């Protein structure tokens, strides 16, 4: 262990330390109103974490006995995660105030959840991934049920917890099976486990896949891999484990819903990308492809149809997150092909970043329009919004157009990227089904736009005071447009030539 190692793992460490500091500051201060200072402190640590990630640069480096690996993609995702945490803390400052909820613990949980997500993102060993995902999930359970006074929030927490714990068990069994199968295969073929590596290390798994003939199709490994992939996809809110996502997003306070939806996706999809990189080009039979295609199409269809006739806008965003999870999985699918891999990783990364911005913004609008701390959840509450609060209506309209993938918003470019990757990987009919799904989704989003602009309403002006959410929503909307028109300036270059796992070669592992 040396400074380089600490630096590589610095981003989550800073977030975790920030969590502790924020918590202790809150405990130490007598006054109940430490709102500004606590927010400031939390954001300071987020920025420090971003800087720490940024200074790592794009080259690949492993640390902590190959337990973690950091490269361009991981750096990007870590910066994104820290940004999401900072924005969530800003956006929820007023909600906390109006709910009289404990603030220090709230900020600490957000920072710690992000720390867990970062550990997951950078982990090269599935053990670290597992610990990271659990830190994130346990914090999520608490955050989802944070508004204990409200039955819906409690229920969201309970459902999320039961489902999450169940899936964690499946994830663990997957890891156990991978551990066993890799170990047995390497042992049977006389391959040595290199010093410092474990059987759960992605590099070791990759070595087994690429150097042991027939290992990629061995049932023990495939069962483990499918369990691992499926449960990680649940953590990202993909069907068929989607049923809690709309419930949780509806029940949780809006900024938290945005946080849950985005952080979980960023973290889970990044580790999936890493896992898929080593599967690329390997003979794993059809099983993984079939599972991934099935999950992706199921999510796209379930998500878009589920969104179609919602009365609650947070549920709508919940279903929308399921559908968008499906599109991201399609991109991941393309990353299984060796030729389309680079394009697919770029497309998926861009998709995740864009989705994060859009979703955080959408939930911020819901909080912005809320009254007395209650989110503006019913879609009927948006009727005639264009006349009452044009700014909010346009902001939400931009997000909805972006979610439906209309040109000149970032949603179009993300979809374009994923479809390009997918079609170049040869998934034509998959793309067509996905297109049909997005046409259904279009209707769901248009309904809200129609309610806002096209329907007259007698509702009175809502006096919203949530300036923080407004700030977040408006800046996110600006980003959505800017990235939709000039993405090359904004983001695309940083994704060039990202690697997700160290290349497998004999020397690398020895």
């Amino acid at each position, binding site marked *: 262990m040396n400074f380089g190692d600490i630096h590589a*793992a610095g981003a989550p460490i800073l977030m975790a330390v920030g969590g502790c500091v924020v918590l202790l500051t809150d405990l130490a201060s007598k006054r109940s109103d430490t709102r500004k200072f606590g927010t400031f402190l939390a954001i300071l640590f987020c920025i420090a974490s971003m800087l720490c990630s940024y200074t790592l640069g794009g080259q690949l480096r492993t640390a902590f*006995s190959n337990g973690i690996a950091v490269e361009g993609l991981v750096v990007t995702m870590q910066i994104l995660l820290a940004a999401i945490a900072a924005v969530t803390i800003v956006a929820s400052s007023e909600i906390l105030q109006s709910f009289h909820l404990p603030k220090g*613990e709230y900020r600490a949980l957000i920072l710690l959840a992000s720390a867990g997500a970062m550990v997951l993102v950078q982990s090269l060993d599935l053990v670290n991934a597992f610990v990271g995902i659990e*830190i994130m999930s346990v914090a999520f359970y608490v955050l989802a049920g944070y508004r204990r006074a409200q039955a819906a929030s409690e229920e969201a927490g309970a459902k999320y917890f039961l489902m999450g714990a169940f899936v964690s068990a499946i994830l663990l069994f997957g890891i156990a099976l991978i551990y066993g199968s890799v170990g047995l295969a390497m042992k049977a073929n006389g391959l040595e486990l290199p010093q410092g590596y474990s059987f759960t290390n992605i590099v070791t798994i990759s070595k087994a896949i690429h150097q042991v003939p027939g290992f990629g199709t061995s049932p023990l490994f495939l069962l483990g891999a499918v369990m691992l992939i499926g449960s990680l996809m649940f953590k990202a809110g993909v069907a068929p484990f989607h049923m809690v996502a709309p419930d949780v997003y509806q029940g949780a306070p809006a900024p938290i819903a945005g946080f849950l939806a985005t952080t979980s996706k960023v973290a889970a999809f990044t580790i999936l990308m890493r896992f898929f990189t080593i599967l690329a080009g390997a003979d794993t039979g059809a099983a993984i492809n079939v599972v991934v295609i099935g999950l992706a199409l199921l999510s796209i269809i379930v998500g878009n149809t589920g969104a179609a006739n919602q009365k609650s806008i947070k549920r709508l965003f919940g279903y929308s997150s399921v559908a968008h999870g499906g599109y991201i999985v399609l991109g991941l699918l393309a990353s299984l092909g060796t030729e389309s891999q680079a394009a697919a990783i770029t497309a998926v990364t861009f998709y995740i970043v864009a989705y994060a911005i859009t979703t955080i913004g959408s939930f911020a609008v819901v909080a912005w329009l809320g009254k007395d701390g209650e989110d503006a959840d019913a879609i009927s509450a948006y009727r005639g919004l264009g006349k009452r609060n044009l700014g909010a209506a346009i902001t939400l309209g931009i997000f909805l157009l972006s979610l439906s993938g209309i040109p000149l918003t970032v949603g179009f470019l993300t979809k374009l990227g994923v479809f390009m990757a997918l079609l170049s990987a040869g998934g034509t009919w998959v793309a067509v089904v996905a297109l049909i799904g997005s046409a259904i989704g279009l209707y769901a989003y248009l309904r809200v736009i129609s309610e806002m602009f096209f329907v007259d309403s007698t509702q009175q002006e809502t006096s919203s005071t949530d300036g923080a959410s407004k700030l977040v929503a408006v800046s996110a909307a600006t980003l959505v447009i800017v990235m939709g028109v000039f993405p090359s300036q904004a983001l695309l270059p940083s994704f060039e030539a990202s690697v997700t796992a160290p290349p497998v070669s004999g020397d690398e592992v020895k």
Partner: protein
Amino acid sequence: MTLQALLSGQGLMFLFFAVAAIASGLLVVILQNPLRAALSLVINLFSVAGLYLSLNAYFLATVQVIVYAGAIMVLFLFVIMLLNMGQANLNTSYRGVRTIIAFSSAIGFGGLMSAVALKGQPDVMLPADAMVTGSSAGSVEGIGKVLYNPNLPWLFAFEWTSFLLLVAVIGAVVLAGKRQQPSEDKA
């Protein structure tokens, strides 16, 4: 070979604990009374601890008994008592159905899963050197030497586990703490 393996001393031990584990596990799934289900889970944990012993994992067997069966299950029992669920819900209307479902799905699904997963997987016996490497690996010393070795990947995860427990503590405090909204105090 299979029968022989089971009829040896170690085999009988395995057989005993395996049957106990499955039986108590089944009871966890089918018993209506939460209290009894929790006690069955304790038995299950003990049986699995016995299996750990047969695998030379002495330390973990101890941890299993002390932490799992001792602490975690006590927490469960405490919550069941707290919520007064001890004899609640004695409705046994579809108990038989549940027993069948649970048993058949466990045997069916588990058997299917193992049949699929172990297809073509040769019977792996203990390696010849297992007595050497295995004897110390399960002890406190052996575990400690591996877990805290900075040249092995476990230390990093171990350190992060402390943050996991911190999150759990914060969560428990938040969830169990006094409700701050005055109007909700009556609830």
